[in-house]
């Protein structure tokens, strides 16, 4: 009975105060909306990196596309003074995630890196996490998708291809985090350094609007930018404590 054995061996660890609040790392992101041009390079990069299926026109019109990061567009004002604003929306990796309590089989949980992770093999497809998520960043595999030859040759071997009936979402490119940790271990380092990793979206962003790093490290670029006066988190009133801080866009009228 490994369950019982685990319980006894880990009891003292689990009882350590703050164990569930303090993380080894706290991966976070700062997105500067002033820099974002809405070019959707991040969307393409994410699709290529994470083996996202291309669902086709019909499924897209049924609202079943899978895009872990998307550019939300909002129009305001009337022509000719119409204004377009956009915001890249991806999994916020909430510290108080509404989705995590929902899953009956613990397929989504918080790991020690402060990431909100999704275990595809564990998922049974109740879709409760997606209903509970206020940011609408969880995507369900309504069908099993295939890649026409030779497209299957470009699939990323580090990332699982998901089957039908499974929920998926942004992982902050966890495969890159794992790889960087392995390299750090090979180099004899205990911790990752600033700049060791970059998720695909941050790497692809031409204007460097997306900055990724460890929020636990006060010297990191993310931690410093997050305290910017323009910083805010989306739907703050829901108390989900997201890991992504957006920097407000400053318009002519604000100046």
């Amino acid at each position, binding site marked *: *009975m*490994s*369950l019982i054995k*685990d319980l006894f061996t880990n009891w003292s660890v689990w009882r350590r105060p703050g164990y569930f609040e303090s993380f080894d790392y706290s991966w976070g992101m700062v997105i500067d909306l002033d820099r974002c041009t809405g070019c959707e390079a991040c969307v393409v990069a994410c699709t290529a990196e994470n083996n996202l299926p291309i669902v086709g026109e019909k*499924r897209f019109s*049924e*609202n*079943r*596309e899978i895009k872990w990061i*998307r550019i*939300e*567009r*909002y129009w305001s004002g009337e022509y000719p003074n119409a204004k377009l604003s956009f915001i890249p*929306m991806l999994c916020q990796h909430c510290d108080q995630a*509404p989705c995590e*309590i*929902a*899953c*009956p*089989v*613990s397929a989504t949980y918080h790991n020690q890196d402060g990431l909100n992770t999704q275990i595809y093999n*564990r*998922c*049974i*497809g*109740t*879709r*409760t996490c*997606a*209903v*509970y998520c*206020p*940011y*609408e960043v969880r*995507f*369900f*595999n*309504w*069908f*099993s998708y295939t890649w026409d030859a030779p497209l299957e040759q470009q699939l990323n071997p580090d990332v699982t291809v998901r089957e*039908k*009936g*499974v*929920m998926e979402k942004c992982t902050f490119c966890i495969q890159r985090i794992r790889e960087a940790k392995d390299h750090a271990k090979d180099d004899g380092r205990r911790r990752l350094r600033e700049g060791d990793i970059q998720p695909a979206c941050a790497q692809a962003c031409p204007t460097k609007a997306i900055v990724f790093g460890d929020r636990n490290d006060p010297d990191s670029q993310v931690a410093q930018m997050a305290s910017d006066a323009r910083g805010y988190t989306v*739907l703050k009133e*829901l108390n989900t404590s997201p890991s992504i801080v957006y920097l407000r866009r400053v318009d002519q009228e604000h100046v």
Partner: protein
Amino acid sequence: MSERGQPSYQEVNDAVLPTMTTFTWRYWTALSISVTVMIFGFFAPWWYQLFVGVGAAGMSRAAYWGTYLGNFIFWIGLSHSGTLLSAVLHITQSDWRKSIYRSAEAMTLFSLITAAFYVMVHLGRLWFVHWTVPIPNVMGLWPNFRSPLMFDVMAITTYLTASSIFIYMGSVPDFATVRDNATGLRRKIYAIMCFGWRGTDREWHRLGWAYTFFAVLVIPLAVSVHSIVSWDFALSIVPGLHHTIFAPYFVCGAIFSGTAGIVTVMYFLRKYFHFERYITEKHFNNLGKLLLLLSLIWSYINMLELFTGWFSGSSFEIEALRFKLFGFYAPLFWEMIAFCAFLPLVLFSEKIRTNFRLMLWISIAINIGMFTERFLIVATTQPRKFLPDAFSFYMPSLVEIAITIGSFAVFTTLFLVFVKVFPSMSMYEVKETLNLPTRKGART
């Protein structure tokens, strides 16, 4: 039952036992239709959906839950009245329950089974459904006990177990009666089913105690089951679902639709099994009063729910409310209000309460309204959550519509099998309410 014209014990047996052994053409027609609809309306589309994925249903992003969960709440709700009503009336010693409770409890059991089917239809990967059950496994992982869905699995399995034991236990003396009036293989089967019941004092004593024990156990259980079903929704932070009133709202709605379901079943039993002497105006009258009361409570809670949403002042709540009251599904919403809040008001009149045919139509209308309510709970809230970019729309697909119709056939099939296996009226308890027979048989 009136004093005059009371049936004798033998007449009770003669009324019930033939319903189990005579197969009319009407029965065969009903059974073959419902089996056909069940196979082609429920299991065939389900198989297709398992094959291609849940995308066969009309759900999409933002509307991740659809008709399946609406149906699930509906069937759990329908299951609520049977066992609950039977148990409440048993411990309050209301004798009029005795001729109707068996079929009411059967309704509970079969709607629970239908509801359990819906959980499975809803799942993306049915073949791993056993992971929701806390059994030690090779992965060394328990299910997530914080999840309301986990509570749900627990509550429904407990309720299913308790109500099946409850209905079986109450039938044991009747199985003995069937055994005594049967021959051959049938006699042997019922001898096993009644556990060799002989009717000794000890057996009656044990049965009485166990039955009361279960009645007391089942009441809080039934209330908790539908509260837990409501938490699936209320524990989310979705506007329009995140209300503290949801638990009593669901429980009240469940008993409401369940009671209406009992009235419907009672009408058909009375008509086709000729239980006119046992299911009388009194039963319809009493259940009519109960329906009226529940409808008033339901209307009050519904108003409260709408008011709380509006009074919160939160733009998300108000948008969800606007979509529900005046959006695409507004006709359904107002139909629900008409059927569940206004129509039952006619039950103030005793003339209507004792009119069998009118009661049948009212009870069916109430259940249509309650079905709509459950559909609206899932269909109107999720497409309007927080980010306007993700606003969407939900429309059931053909597969979902077929499965919805098919599930009624699943229920009907189970019930049609039930009436041939169980005595559909509790013979021994009806006899308890009668006066002693005279030497010649019936009292004149």
